[in-house]
């Protein structure tokens, strides 16, 4: 038989009818819990809410980006849909891009924190974990640069960049990870590779490298060893071709000489075009040609180098 805990009129000793059963204790607990609940409720209504905590915040921006031609050469097995490798093509189908991110972290707390790792999604097909060992002082901020090698192969689906920061406290204990807020262009659809496509000339993923370039009077002769799988688009007159060559947005007057299975010589007619170097835009050191390839006419980027930059006229009238 059980006795209700609220039965205060029960005869003395009644509460010990069942061994170990103490209605008084239960009553005590019930009153205690009710008090806690009522107190909390009163506190939330009457007392001001606690100030929100200010967590560590971080942002990720693109600091620099470039193509590193010294990275491993063309992939032995090109990805599906990609054009076949060519003789003097630079890099592989991933584009060999190198992007330097600047990570800026703000720590509003009094205690310092240590960044131990940056987790990145959307830069390559798989998630990346970059180890860090950087201290962020209390009530301070820190900036750190990290280099990544994005996968911008032509067939890759665009992906936005997501980042997360792992940290430890002053005593070495793990803290909650922090979601990093990337700059807008990284967060939108297309992510990092769209930004590279926007910044760099078409065809940057699979550029060709000129084997030689030399001024010939007012002209510039550019030699490309071979263009396997590609043919320059244009009118063929005898063995002379009038290809379509762009320097920046300018269409150049040019001619080309082809040797079957051999080198291609592009002759860019002088006087050299004038380029503006006063608005901060870099002075081109490469050309784009329209070439007939396996996938129709496409732009190919040809890295010529400083010889081309020197040939150009800067800020002429």
């Amino acid at each position: 038989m059980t006795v209700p805990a609220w039965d205060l009129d029960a005869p003395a000793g009644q509460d010990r009818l069942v061994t170990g059963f103490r209605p008084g204790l239960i009553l005590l607990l019930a009153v205690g819990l009710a008090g806690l609940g009522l107190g909390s409720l009163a506190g939330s209504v009457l007392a001001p809410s606690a100030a929100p905590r200010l967590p560590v915040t971080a942002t990720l921006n693109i600091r620099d980006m470039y193509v590193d031609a010294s990275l491993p050469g063309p992939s032995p097995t090109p990805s599906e849909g990609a054009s076949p490798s060519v003789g003097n093509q630079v890099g592989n189908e991933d584009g060999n891009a190198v992007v330097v991110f600047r990570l800026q972290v703000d720590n509003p707390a009094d205690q310092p924190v240590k960044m131990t790792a940056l987790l990145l999604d959307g830069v390559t097909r798989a998630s990346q974990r970059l180890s860090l060992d950087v201290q962020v002082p209390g009530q301070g901020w820190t900036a750190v640069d990290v280099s990544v090698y994005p996968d911008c192969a032509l067939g890759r689906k665009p992906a936005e960049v997501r980042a997360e920061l792992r940290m430890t406290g002053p005593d070495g204990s793990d803290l909650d990870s922090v979601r990093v807020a990337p700059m807008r262009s990284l967060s939108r659809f297309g992510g990092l590779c769209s930004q590279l496509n926007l910044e760099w000339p078409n065809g940057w993923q699979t550029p060709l490298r000129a084997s030689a370039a030399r001024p010939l009077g007012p002209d510039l002769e550019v030699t490309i060893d071979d263009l396997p799988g590609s043919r320059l688009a244009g009118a063929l007159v005898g063995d002379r071709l009038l290809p379509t060559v762009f320097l920046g947005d300018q269409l150049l007057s040019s001619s080309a000489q082809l040797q079957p299975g051999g080198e291609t010589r592009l002759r860019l007619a002088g006087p050299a075009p004038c380029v503006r170097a006063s608005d901060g835009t870099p002075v081109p050191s490469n050309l784009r040609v329209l070439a007939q390839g396996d996938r129709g006419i496409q732009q190919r980027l040809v890295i010529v180098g400083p010889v081309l930059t020197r040939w150009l006229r800067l800020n002429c009238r």
Partner: protein
Amino acid sequence: MQRPVITDLARGVDRRLIGLSLVGLLALAIGYLGQNSWGVGSAASAATGAIVTDVIGSAGSRNPVRAKVSVAVTNRGSQQIRVLKPDLPGDGTAVLSLSPSELRVDPGAIGRVDADVSLRCDLPEPLRLPDLRMELRNGTLWGLPVSGSGMMVEACSRAASAFRPLVGALARRPAGTSPATGTSPTGGERLTVRLHSPTGRRFDVPQIRAGGVVLTMSPATVALTGKTPVVVHLTAPKSCPVQWQIPGIPSALSVDLRPPASSRPSRAAEFGATVWLQLGPAVASWLLATSCPAPQ
């Protein structure tokens, strides 16, 4: 005389009631004082941060300078929050409008809001955005500090030169040298640039780069302390860097700015900024001559 039974019972009941009342009062007090810690019955427990991610626009000559500043709001709390335009101006800044005008951020999410901001770039003091207003679910309003205000100096660097944080000019060429370069005593060619802040803004220049390549500076760190010009000598890389292959030869320099060492740590000038210094075709000519010379 025999004590009545009813008196004993009443005493027992009295003791129990007093004990229970004490326990109840104690629990009430604990609940009242501790509700914020464990969140029982509380609408708060918000943990929210805001940070500047992008600074866009601002070209033009009007003062104050107008710019668009993107702010990411990270909600690590347990309730949805509402972010609203600040009521008050910040240090040298004022938020004119937000887009969207009211941002709702769910728990665990990052929300983004664009602020149309006016900036007093002509003042020497560090720029600082005012706190945004954050409304909790129970209607409580709190200020939400925005980190990374220092990046707004980048907007000033795109405005008219009188409002820029940093202006550079090539130093007068020594006799017999090209317009862009000065010849150092060691015979190596260096670019000599005179830097100054037209607005008297104070900061350090820890690094100057060309097309993503760090240029050696002499002195290694430049401290700009107002409008007084400072001369810095730049040495280009010894060979043509891979960074310039695709974009081309740089014609502008990027300069890192950070709050002066004496003011750190400073909540008012958080984060450094990177601004562009355009010195005309001389930069490209200098880099071509020194780093990427024609083969002999």
